[in-house]
């Protein structure tokens, strides 16, 4: 494993498999226990540095670190020196002085974790940067797929929605490809980046054509504001062409699953009856997030010499 986890490309197939296997062992070790706490990272400090509100992701990382007995400091950009104009570098040096062993960073700017990694000695874990990547989300998604379907190799994953602005899509395309899955992206052409042709994924515009050949459908959150920038004409048209409703879900193979990184826009990209169906892994994804992040923290911090 590299020292930092900044993007899916930091993990080769062996590393990624090791993370998933470790998460599975942790899950198994903690299953049914009253005390879900391990002493592994006692005395280590994990800083959650969040420049963007994301309670879900922060809590998931916080729980993961605490279950490994690390000391956790939450450093939110709001109400701290960060919002008073302190530069990312100055913040990094402050964290360095505090002796952070790992910095989990969520940032609105693509590449901010890469910058941070130049300035701190500890490990940097990207918890989502701008429209770039969110590698632990991809890991928990891969973990969830493997848990449900028993494999990743050859699994046909269709990612639907705002690929252009989605860090989840970028990380999943990279990681799932690394792990042998076949990824197809489906979106209105306006929400696919110029240059998507160089990605290791098929690209299509017709959701109905792809669904019968999908083992996994991953719905991305679509912000209604996008229609103000003419990415699509209206929420209704988007939903009609790219939303997953019960009729479309019926076109999926029998054991196919439906995923969503959350938070969902019910009625927009996903219908309530789909989100709540047995195919939906949305709740598992949340639980798996904790064990996957525990695995990442263990593998990055467990053995790194000071």
């Amino acid at each position, binding site marked *: 494993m590299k020292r930092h986890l900044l993007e899916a490309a930091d993990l080769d197939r062996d590393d990624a498999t090791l993370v998933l296997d470790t998460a599975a062992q942790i899950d198994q070790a903690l299953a049914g226990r009253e005390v879900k706490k391990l002493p592994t990272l006692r005395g280590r400090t994990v800083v959650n540095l969040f420049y963007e509100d994301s309670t879900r992701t922060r809590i998931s990382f916080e729980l993961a670190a605490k279950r490994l007995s690390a000391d956790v400091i939450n450093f939110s950009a709001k109400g701290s020196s960060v919002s008073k104009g302190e*530069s*990312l*570098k100055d913040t990094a040096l402050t964290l360095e002085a505090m002796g952070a062993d790992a910095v989990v960073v969520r*940032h*609105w*700017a*693509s*590449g*901010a974790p*890469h*910058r941070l990694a130049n300035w701190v000695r500890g490990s940097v874990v990207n918890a989502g*940067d*701008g*429209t*770039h*990547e969110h590698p632990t989300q991809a890991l928990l998604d891969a973990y969830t797929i493997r848990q449900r379907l028993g494999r990743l190799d050859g699994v046909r994953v269709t990612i639907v929605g705002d690929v252009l602005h989605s*860090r989840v899509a*970028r990380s999943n395309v990279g990681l799932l490809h690394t792990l042998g899955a076949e990824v197809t992206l489906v979106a209105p052409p306006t929400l696919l*980046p*110029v*240059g*998507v*042709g*160089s*990605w290791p994924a098929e690209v299509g515009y017709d959701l109905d054509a792809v669904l019968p050949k999908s083992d996994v459908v991953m719905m991305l959150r679509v912000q209604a504001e996008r229609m103000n920038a003419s990415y699509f004409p209206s929420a209704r048209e988007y939903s009609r062409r790219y939303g997953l409703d019960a009729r479309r879900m019926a076109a999926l193979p029998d054991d196919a699953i439906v995923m969503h990184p959350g938070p969902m826009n019910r009625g927009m990209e996903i219908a309530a009856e789909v989100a709540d169906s047995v195919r939906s892994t949305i709740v598992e994804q949340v639980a798996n997030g904790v064990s996957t992040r525990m695995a990442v923290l263990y593998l990055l911090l467990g053995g790194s010499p000071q």
Partner: protein
Amino acid sequence: MTTYLIKGARPLGGEPADILVKDGRIAAIGDSLSATGAEVVEAAGLIALPGLVDLHTHLREPGREDAETVETGSRAAALGGFTAVHAMANTDPVADTAGVVEQVWRLGQEAGLVDVVPVGAVTVGLKGERLAELGAMADSAARVRVFSDDGHCVSDPALMRRALEYVKAFDGVVAQHAEEPRLTVGAQMHEGDRSARLGLTGWPAAAEEAIIARDVLLAEHVGARLHVCHVSTAGSVEILRWAKSRGVQVTAEVTPHHLLLTDACAESYDPVFKVNPPLRTDADVEALRAGLADGTIDAVGTDHAPHAVEDKESEWAQARPGMLGLEQALSVVIETMVEPGRLDWAGVADRMSVRPAAIGRVDGHGRPLAPGEPANLVLVDPSARATVDPAALASRSRNSPYAGRELPGRVVATFLKGTPTVLDGKAVK
């Protein structure tokens, strides 16, 4: 005034000759010249070129003296072999009145390291709404001939047309920063494979090309001179080639960084590589070199853009665009054009001195190396190679994209109107 005898330099890369500099002019060029009392400059192996002229320099004064001043920028220019630089108008206050351009011009005269030629803003406050007092700036002591809203595009086509027409009255030229703003909202880097992967909002080539295409048609229609700043794409070169073939009075510049670097630099997310227009692809770099070689692109313009550390040591999206260029411009041209055989030394003189001086209507610069001409000249050691150390630069800022890169060529001496501003590779003052 000291008389200088330059021994054994090769004018424009030709046969070695001695050059006698006296009373601010070239007094003689020939074999084995001698002059009693002259200070001798040994120049065997050095190339003599007319002093370089930059059409595109950001000196930051007034307003951001923490990033650069007229004096520090002038010193950087002299060390880069320049004897004249055009100071861009996006200062604070904006150089959109006779008062501001005269202030900048006077600061340049006081520094005395290069001729600082102010550029006037096209529109008031660079806002793109109404014309600044272009005539007043032209008539001022600064004698402004180049007008630009650089940093911003004059995107309103009607306003652009009026500007092109209006400056004809005093032989002016509008230097356009070609960027269709509606196509570059939030843009961070060249739009392509890399921007898709890095998650940085793309700056499409079409946003530049669309404006250049529009502007050459306007310039043709009204019979005016148009200059295109920092051309960065292969498509732009094609449009320029087409326009020139039609006889449109259009000129264009390319920056050193667009001749050398590509969008691959963005992979580090180090904002030292963030610039506007952005670094493009290998294919664009190749087209720009070809365009400069065949004259489709007339000039090298540095777009020297100093920025304070805090404006660059940040997230990519937060950082200001721009990079230093004056001190390495000639080296980059040697690396990308001379050493590969695409431009000889006469070609370098043409693209870095003669044509930019002509475009800017700068008197006394870009002249032949001949007796009687003003002694604006530079001596270059083409065989020297050095690794760029930002800390050693004369600029007040450190945002050089060439840090750690080895580049060829060294400016040994620069003469401004017969007075050395650089000797032995060091600034004289």
